[in-house]
């Protein structure tokens, strides 16, 4: 008989680094303990894919791989402490062992972005999936045209990846537009104040030869899509990611589908046109 | 030769009376068996029947729940509420076939170090006599749960 292959078996990961991003939000850098697991990850990981991060005794939780495909010898994830698993992950320390199952799902078609201008839009805790694409593109900067990043959070404290935001802000080949919701600014805040859709409209990036990557809470997505439409973006050129509750991550446990579309297998990356075709009542 | 059976007993006690009673037993150098693991809670009113089920789930052979005498509750009436709950849960456990020796309830005040020591000895002996809670342990084993490292 062939050796038993357990599709539910996770890889054991060591926490190489922890970083507190914002209140309740933390980033972990995880390193594979088994070289075979690392090898598999290197071969299969592409930006946009997700994984199930776990702590034995607590369970597994799904979020995107926040690190880019151009840096594939580790896995980074950023999450908000909210349920049982994220609470356990948040209290884990450097050197602790956790688990990772994946990478699963589809990817951003980055080759199709070659030669185009890129517009990244993210809100709050949804920067991680966008960040994965941003670095994947910045790591091969000369293949792309103009890069614009519009990122907003409720308050200054809620902005994640603060160091990277600074780095992107310093770069000449990136246009960074930061904003916080009205009332969320600190006395020394030098950037914009306002909601992402209106800030985006003010910044008015050209839709010509441009693809947009948009990640955020549903309400932000809804209004930002309207703004993008005003700016002349076609739905086929706007990419986003969807999230749903998952248990298996591989199309078997039966809960993440939106209509007939399984987020875990056919997603999490979709164009706005694909999302528009989904039944709105299930999103 | 197998090891002689040492009962595993979990005691859920309130911090104001029974825990203080246990403390007194200790400082008075009263001898009692070391089979009891004490879990200290603010009041018997906080001791949910879930705790008892959890102890059994983790393989306890016996459980003791103990707090202040009626009228002595630090929070005035937590133990009166607990008493009603115990009445009902005790009856349920017995109806489900959990022998009454396995789950006991008592009032032990901060001054009753001797009562604490004697009760622990008595409960431990009772359980030693009836042996490990094999019926429950069989259910635990059936889940495939691995033994502690």
């Amino acid at each position: 008989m062939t050796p038993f292959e357990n599709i539910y078996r996770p890889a054991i990961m060591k926490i190489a680094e922890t970083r507190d991003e914002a209140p309740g939000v933390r980033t972990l850098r995880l390193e594979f303990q088994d070289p075979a697991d690392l090898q598999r990850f290197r071969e299969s990981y592409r930006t946009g894919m997700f994984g199930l991060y776990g702590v034995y005794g607590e369970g597994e939780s799904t979020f995107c791989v926040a690190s880019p495909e151009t840096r594939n010898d580790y896995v980074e994830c950023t999450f908000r402490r909210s349920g049982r698993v994220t609470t356990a992950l948040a209290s884990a320390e450097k050197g602790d062992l956790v688990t990772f199952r994946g990478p699963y799902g589809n990817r951003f078609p980055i080759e199709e972005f070659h030669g185009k201008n890129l517009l990244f839009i993210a809100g709050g805790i949804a920067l991680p999936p966008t960040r994965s694409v941003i670095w994947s593109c910045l790591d091969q900067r000369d293949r792309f045209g103009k890069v614009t990043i519009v990122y907003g959070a409720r308050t200054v404290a809620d902005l994640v990846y603060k160091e990277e935001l600074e780095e992107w802000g310093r770069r000449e080949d990136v246009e960074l537009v930061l904003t916080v919701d009205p009332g969320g600014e600190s006395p020394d805040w030098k950037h914009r104040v306002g909601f992402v859709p209106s800030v985006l409209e003010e910044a008015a990036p050209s839709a010509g030869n441009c693809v947009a990557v948009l990640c955020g809470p549903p309400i932000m997505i809804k209004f930002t899509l309207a703004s993008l439409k005003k700016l002349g973006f076609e739905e086929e050129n706007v990419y986003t990611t969807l999230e749903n509750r998952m248990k298996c991550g591989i199309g078997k446990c039966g809960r993440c589908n939106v209509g007939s579309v399984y987020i875990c297998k056919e997603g999490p990356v979709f164009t706005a046109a694909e999302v528009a075709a989904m039944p709105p009542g299930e999103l | 030769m197998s090891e002689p059976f040492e009962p595993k007993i979990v005691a859920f006690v309130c911090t104001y009376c029974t825990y203080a009673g246990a403390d007194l037993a200790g400082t008075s150098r009263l001898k009692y068996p070391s089979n009891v693991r004490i879990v200290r809670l603010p009041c018997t009113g906080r001791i949910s029947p879930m705790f008892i089920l959890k102890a059994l789930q983790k393989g306890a052979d016996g459980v003791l729940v103990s707090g202040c005498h009626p009228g002595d509750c630090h929070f005035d009436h937590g133990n009166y509420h607990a008493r009603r709950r115990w009445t009902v849960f005790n009856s349920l456990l017995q109806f489900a076939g959990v022998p009454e020796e396995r789950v006991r309830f008592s009032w032990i005040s901060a001054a009753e170090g001797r009562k604490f020591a004697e009760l622990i000895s008595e409960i431990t002996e009772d359980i030693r006599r009836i042996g490990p809670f094999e019926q429950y342990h069989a259910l635990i084993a059936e889940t495939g749960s691995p033994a502690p490292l």
Partner: protein
Amino acid sequence: MSLQEHYRSQARELLAAGAVKMVVGYAEGTTPERRRPVFITEPEECSRLVLDARCRTNLAGYLLREGLLSDGREIAVYLSTEGVRTINILAAESQLSSAQVRILGFEIDRDEVKAMEGKRAADFSEAILAHKERRKKQAPDELAAKLEAMNAAERFTFWQGEFSRCIKCYACRQACPMCWCRRCVVDNNQPQWVNTSSHTLGNLEWNLVRAFHLAGRCVECGNCGRACPVDIPLHLLNRKMTGEVLEAFDHYPGMDEHQEPALASFRKDDPETFIL
């Protein structure tokens, strides 16, 4: 006029006059033996309402559907004595206002259905009192008596066999009008007190927790037992708890809407013979 006709026309009048926004009752089911819950909002649909000795389901739980009573309007509902007691308990537990519940009372006596006079839960206190007196004298059923006669190990084995069949579909919980928690204790996972898996241990834990949470609240309507797809004798556990609470605290759940819940109240002289 049969009771069925009488209540049909009452339902029609109530809806037509706008006195109630909905009638919760029984309609014919898939087979001639079956009855099913039905929700009528139009006077002309009232001819679907059925009332006979097959109408066993306690419908009170449907009143707790999210938002149903939030507009303050009244709903008429077919209820037996157990159902009326359920309304009293739910009102005592602040889950609904009995003023919003217009009762179409009935009682099933063997194969006959009889009217119970009254409109509001408070009108049924005599009938409830009579039930309490009858319950006090009620002897345990055959299986319960057999169980009581067993020793602990035998009882454990009996329940082990019963619970091994449980598939954790939670039909008992969902069918119970008393199980109104937004999030059941087994669905809370911080901490996870009892196992969610459907092995015998997890099933035993679930069933004990369920029985305990219904102690002093269960009206013995039988919804749980009828819903159980694997016929676990859940009523034995519930009856045991009801008997215990009645005997120890003279508490019969659902006497009126001001009755304090048995496990949220106490008397200083409550019995405590088992406490060391």
